[in-house]
C-alpha cells in the first residue's frame, strides 16, 4: 500500500455511500436470482443439461461488475472523496503512480465485489454439484474482463474533458464490447464477455478473452500514463 493514490481511493471507496448502494444493488440482484432460481430445472430436454441458473448468475455478475468498475474510473459514477486522474496531476504524484494506483484500486474493488458475491455463487454451484474449477475459471475471467474494460474508463477520464462526451464514449464502448462482438466470426466470438463466461462456466479455458482484455487493460493503462505525462509536462 505504498501507492498514495491506491490508498486514497480505497479509503474513499470504503466510506462511499454510492459504492455501498452499488454493492447493495449488485448483491440484491445476485441474491434474488439465486433464490428465484432455486427450483430445479425439471422437464427439460435430455440434451440441454447446462446448469443454466449458474451461467445466468455469472452473466449478470460480469455485466454489473464491468459497468460499475468502468463507470467509477470514467467518473460517470463519482465516488465521494475520490479524485479524478486529471486532478491528481496537479498534486505531487508521478503519472505512473496515478495510473498504477487507479488501476490497482479498480482491480481490488472488482476482486472484493467478486468475493462478496462468492457465497451466493457457491450456494448455486453446490446445489447443482458444479465443479469448483468452473466457478474459479469464470471468476478469473470476470475479474480480467471487468478490469480491462475499467481501464478503458480510466483512459476516457483523461481523454475526454466533457462529461457528456465521456459518458457517450463509455456507453458506446460497452455496447461495442457486449453487443458488437456478437457479430464477430465464430472463432473470435469468445471475445464477447457473455460468450466467454458461458465457455468458462462449461469448463473451456477462456484464454483468448483473458489475453485480449488483459492486453486491452495494459494498453489503456500505458496510453493513460502517456497522456498524463504529457499533460503534466505541459
Amino acid at each position, binding site marked *: 500500500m505504498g501507492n498514495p493514490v491506491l490508498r486514497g481511493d*480505497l479509503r474513499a471507496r470504503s466510506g462511499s455511500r454510492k459504492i455501498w448502494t452499488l454493492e447493495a444493488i449488485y448483491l440484491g440482484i445476485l441474491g434474488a436470482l439465486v433464490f428465484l432460481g*432455486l427450483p430445479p430445472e*425439471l*422437464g427439460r430436454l435430455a440434451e440441454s443439461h447446462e446448469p443454466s441458473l449458474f451461467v445466468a448468475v455469472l452473466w449478470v455478475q460480469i455485466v454489473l461488475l464491468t459497468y460499475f468498475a468502468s463507470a467509477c474510473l470514467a467518473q460517470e459514477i463519482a465516488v465521494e472523496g475520490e479524485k479524478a486522474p486529471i486532478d491528481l496531476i496537479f498534486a505531487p504524484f508521478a503519472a505512473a503512480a496515478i495510473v498504477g494506483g487507479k488501476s490497482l484500486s479498480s482491480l481490488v474493488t472488482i476482486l472484493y465485489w467478486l*468475493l*462478496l458475491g*462468492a457465497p451466493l455463487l457457491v450456494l448455486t454451484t453446490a446445489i447443482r454439484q458444479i465443479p469448483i474449477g468452473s466457478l474459479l475459471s469464470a471468476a478469473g475471467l470476470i475479474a480480467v474482463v471487468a478490469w480491462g474494460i475499467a481501464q478503458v474508463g480510466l483512459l476516457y477520464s483523461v481523454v475526454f474533458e466533457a462529461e457528456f462526451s465521456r459518458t457517450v464514449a463509455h456507453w458506446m464502448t460497452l455496447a461495442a464490447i457486449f453487443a458488437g462482438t456478437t457479430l464477430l466470426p465464430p472463432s473470435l466470438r469468445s471475445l464477447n464477455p457473455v460468450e466467454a463466461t458461458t465457455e468458462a462456466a462449461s469448463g473451456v479455458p477462456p484464454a483468448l478473452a483473458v489475453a485480449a482484455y488483459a492486453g486491452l487493460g495494459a494498453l489503456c493503462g500505458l496510453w493513460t500514463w502517456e497522456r498524463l505525462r504529457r499533460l503534466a509536462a505541459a
Partner: protein
Amino acid sequence: MRRARAWRDRHALTALFGLALVCGLAAFVSPPPPLPHARAASSPEAVARLEVRLGFGGVVKIGVPLPLEVVLPPLAVSGPAEMVVDTPALGPQAGQVVTTTAVPFVSVADTVRVIRAPVVISDPRRPVTVRVTVRGREVLGTTVALSPEHVGGRVVVALSDDRTGLAALHRLPGPVVVAYVTAEALPRRWQEYAAVDLLVIRDLDPAALDVAQQEALLRWVRLGGRLLLVARSAAAAGSTETAGSPGGRAPVFPAYLDPLLPADVGPIRALPSAAGLAERYGGTSPSGPLTVAALRPRAGAGHLDLSGVPVIASGGPGSGQGQVTIWGFDPWRPPLIGWNGRLPLWDNALGSEPAPGVDVEGLAEHLAAGTPLDPTVHARVFGAILLYLALLLGLRRWKPTVAGAAGALLIVLAALGAFPMLAEVVRDRSATLAQVTIIEPAIGTGSARATTVAAVAVPYGGRYRVTAVPAEMLAEPLTPASDLRIVLGALGSELTGVLRSGDPPRPFLAVGAIPLSASAVLSRDGRSLAVDLGALRATHVELRWRDRLYPLADLPAGRTVHELRPDGWIAAASSGGSSSEWSGRVARAIFQGSGADAILNGAAPVLAGEVDGVAPVFTLGGARALGQRLTVLLVPLERR
C-alpha cells in the same frame, strides 16, 4: 590341418553370427513382458471356464426377469468376491446402455460355486457379459451371445425325457419357442418364470427339485402361471393309485404338486379311439386306440371326457390365479404324436396371451409428475440469503472504513463455510421417492402378488441409492439406464445410479409375493357383499366394475358384510374418494390406464382400497424428504 582349422573357425563365426541374429530377431518380435491384466488372463483361473446357463435351456424372452446360473470352477484365491453381469438394454443411445447386476459372495479356494442372479435382457443383439472378481481383481470372465431363434415371443418350457415332438408349436402365434430343460434349470425365484407362458411337466423325478424350486413353482402357478401335467400311461401304470389317492401308493406327480391338481390320476384305460379329441380340436381322427390314464376330477375342476373317461382336467380351486391342466394321455406317443389336430390342442393348453394388468410404465409417469420442493427449504434459503446480505451491508454501513470492508470479508468466509452445508440440505430434501404398491390376492392361496412402482427424483442431479427389501422382492429398472448397478444382497437389492440435473425421475419396479388372506364375495343377486381383509384395514374402499363404482368408505380388519343398493353405483368419473390429489392421480393411472380393461372388465367387479400398515419396499438412501407412498388393494370379487 590349418585349412581345416580355418574352415572350423569360419563356420564357428558364421554360427555365432547366425545365433546372434536369431536371438536379435527373437528379441525384436517376441511379445513384451505380460502386463498385470494379461498375467491374470494366463493364470489358472483364466484357463478354467465359467459355465453360464441363461434363461431356459438358452431360450429367453425380452424385458422380463430370467434365471441366470453361473458355475464357477475352483478358484486359486479366497476372499470377498463378486459376480458382475452386464446386460445390454435398448436406450436412446444405441450400444451404450448396460445394466449391471452384481452378486457379492465369499470365494473359497478350490471350491466349485454356483451363483444365481435374475437378469433382464432388453437388447438381444449384444452379448451378456459375466465377470468374476476376487479381492477387486478380475479373475474370470465370459460373454454369452444370444441367437435370434432362442428369443421367444411366447415360451413353452418342457420337462421331458423326449426332447423332440413339439417343433410344430412354432407355427402358433407368438411366435412360440419350445425349450426342453431338466429339473435343475427350473428357477428358484417365482418371478423368474415371467418368461414362461406354459410349463409342461412330463418326466419329473419328485426329488429333482429342491425346496426353493418347489416353492417357486407353486407360487408362480398360484399367482397366474400355466402348468400342464402329462400323466404318462407308463408312469400311471407303475402306480396303481395316484397322487392324493387313497391307496397310498407312489403318486404319478410329486406330492408337492398335489394342492394344485385339478384331478387325481386313476387307472390305465385303453380307449378304442381318440375321435373325441378330433371332434373337439379339429383335424382328422387319430388312428388306432389311445391308452390313457383315467382322471378323477376334483370338485370345481373342468374336464373333457373321451368315451366317458375324463382325459383332460383343468382349473380347480387350488391353483389361485393360475391354470393347471392334466392330460391323461401322452402327446409324445402315437397316435397323438402324428395327429394333425394337435396344434389346436396345444394352443388351448397355452391359452391366450394374458392381458397386462396394471400399466406400470403409465403409473410411473404419474408418480413422477412434479417433484415439489419442500417449502421449508425455500424458507431456509431465503432466510440465509437475507441474513447474509443484511449482515454484510449492515457492517459496511455501520463501519464505512477499510477496516469495515475487511471485516465484511470475515462474514464472506463464514458464508462460504455455511452455504455449502445449506446446499447439501437443499439437495437432500429435494431428492424424493414416490412409490405405489398394488396388492392382488390370489383367492384361496393365502398369498398375494405385490407390485411396487417407484420413481426416484434427484432434481439437482447426483448419485442416488435405493434399497428394495425384502430380498424376495425382485427389483429392476423400468427404463434403460447406462449407469445403473444392482447389487443383490441377502437382505435385499441395492440400486445405485446417477441422475443429471434436469433428468426426469427414474422409475423402478419390484415384484414379489406377500402372505395375505383377503377375499370379497358378492352374492348372486348382487345385493350383499362379504369382505374379509384379514389383518388389513382399508380406507376409501370402493367396488369398481367397468365405468361404474360403488363407494364403501373405510373397512376394518377382519370380516364385514355390506348390503348393496342398486342405486348406489355411480359413474367412475364422478368419484372423488381418494385420500389426496396424488393418490387420486395414481388411481386414475390404475383404473384409466392401458391396463384398466384387464382389471375392470372382468366377469365380476373388483374391490379397491387404500391399505395402511404395509412396509415400504423401496427406501431412498440419504433422503430427508418424506416422499409419497400408497398401497392399493385390488381384490377380484367372487360370486357365490
